[in-house]
């Protein structure tokens, strides 16, 4: 038993160092619920101050681990400290695409192999991702299941939430062009750490067909 301050970002979220981006997002969602104000699971264990401090640590852990550059830098620190083994990082496990340039968000994409293994964790996500065709409603269910709000995606991608709402409601003609639709959709899917090409293709299929 170590004090909370000594736990790594992975330990705070109960993750292994090889956790996939989807696992990280789900662990974050679970942890945020567990330590929320009206959570029954921690009832009577913490003062409000303690609880907020733990939540702040969880937020920090997620902020680091959900950003591939920050995560890889953080992994290097852990490896130097000896708390993490070289080769146990997510990016080296052959699941994710190798990190070429930290600024390029396409590196977040999964290989199909990875998509299968991480989808297996969540039956709803798995079910939707196994469909031949994906509708706006499917995307919305995926997003909700992963605990992400439209505002969060908008803030990161600098695209207005209304654009994403149009995508989720299948209002294609509200968007400036098909090209816009495709690039907004790609940004949306990337934010959810899902394979952009495969998801975008299955969504666009309906429009072209």
């Amino acid at each position, binding site marked *: *038993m170590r004090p*909370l301050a000594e736990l790594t970002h992975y330990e705070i979220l*109960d993750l292994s160092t090889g956790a996939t981006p989807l696992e990280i997002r789900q662990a974050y969602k*679970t942890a945020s619920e*567990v330590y929320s104000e009206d959570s*029954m*699971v*921690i*009832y*009577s*264990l*913490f003062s409000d101050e303690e609880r907020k401090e733990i939540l702040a640590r969880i937020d920090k852990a997620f902020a680091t681990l959900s950003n591939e550059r920050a995560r890889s830098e953080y992994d290097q620190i852990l490896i130097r400290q000896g708390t993490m083994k070289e080769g146990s990082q997510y990016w080296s496990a052959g699941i994710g695409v190798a990190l070429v340039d930290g600024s390029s968000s396409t590196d977040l994409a999964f290989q199909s192999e990875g998509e299968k293994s991480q989808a297996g964790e969540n039956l709803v996500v798995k079910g939707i991702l196994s469909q031949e065709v994906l509708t706006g409603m499917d995307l919305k269910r995926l997003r909700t299941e992963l605990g992400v709000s439209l505002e969060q995606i908008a803030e990161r991608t600098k695209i207005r939430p209304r654009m994403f709402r149009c995508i989720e409601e299948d209002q294609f003609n509200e968007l400036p062009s098909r090209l816009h639709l495709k690039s907004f959709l790609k940004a949306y899917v990337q934010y959810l750490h899902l394979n952009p090409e495969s998801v975008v293709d299955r969504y666009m299929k309906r429009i072209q067909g």
Partner: protein
Amino acid sequence: MTNIWPIGGGKGGSGKSFLAGNLGIWLAREGNKTLLIDADFGAANLHTMIGIPYQHKGLSDFLNKKVQTLAETAIETRFPNLFLISGAGNNLDTANMAYEQKMKIFRAISKLSYDFTLLDLGAGTSFNTIDFFLISDSGIFVTTPEPTSIENVYRLVRAVYARKIRQLLKTFHFQTLAQETEAKTKGAVVSNPEYFLSVIKELEPEKGKMVEEALRASQFKLVLNQLRKQDNPKMGILICRIIQKHLGIPVQFIGNIAHDDLVHDAVCQRVPFLDKYPHTQTAADLKKFCKHILGERSRGEGFGPAEGALGKAAELGGNNGE
């Protein structure tokens, strides 16, 4: 030597007697000679759970020296292989038992020749309740998915753990160490076991390590009882994770037991639930719970961590004798 399972859970009404009774029935039905001991002094009603009327004969006869051995107080039930030592005859004095009397019971229990002994403990975190967790390396905590019950189970887990540490310190003659820790931070020994352990390790690394290892031998388990459809089925796993992370105590989650109004029905009719309603989710959950306990049998439970090796040797002897 017998497999001893104390069953507790801070709050009243969380289903301790219900689980103990039905677990007992199932273990007996599977061919294990099983003893139920009602250690809920002052509020004993395990007998009712297994369809036996009020008993005069019981644990208090052994304590009052009416009988020579604890084994004599056990009565047969209408289930083959299932025996009961009732707590119903206990007067209020037994509810505030002296430490020596408890030790007498402990020694007697560990000498009984049953395959399984289930201890149905009272609510609350009095020494009377938590001391019964010291008799075994195992223990089952019962909670329901309600804040009141969860609050009490956290308090109980902490109290039992702190008590185990105390017992270990006594065994290893560490009293001075405990006093030093207490002097450093008042109340640390009882209220904050993980902190206490870290102080011991700091003051005396070797002894600290011994205590830590002995504590690791503890096999605490948690059952989430009365889970309704709208409740989060993952709550039990999360509670165990929280106990491990913030109290530093390993507790294994066994599973959920579904809520069923028929339980109330069975208790009112004073018939065992597993008997009356075997084709329910609750019965299926109970069976899973029993199978888990059966699977743990091979571990061998000793009389307290310090005598674990002794207990194992005795158990081997006991099995040969049957």
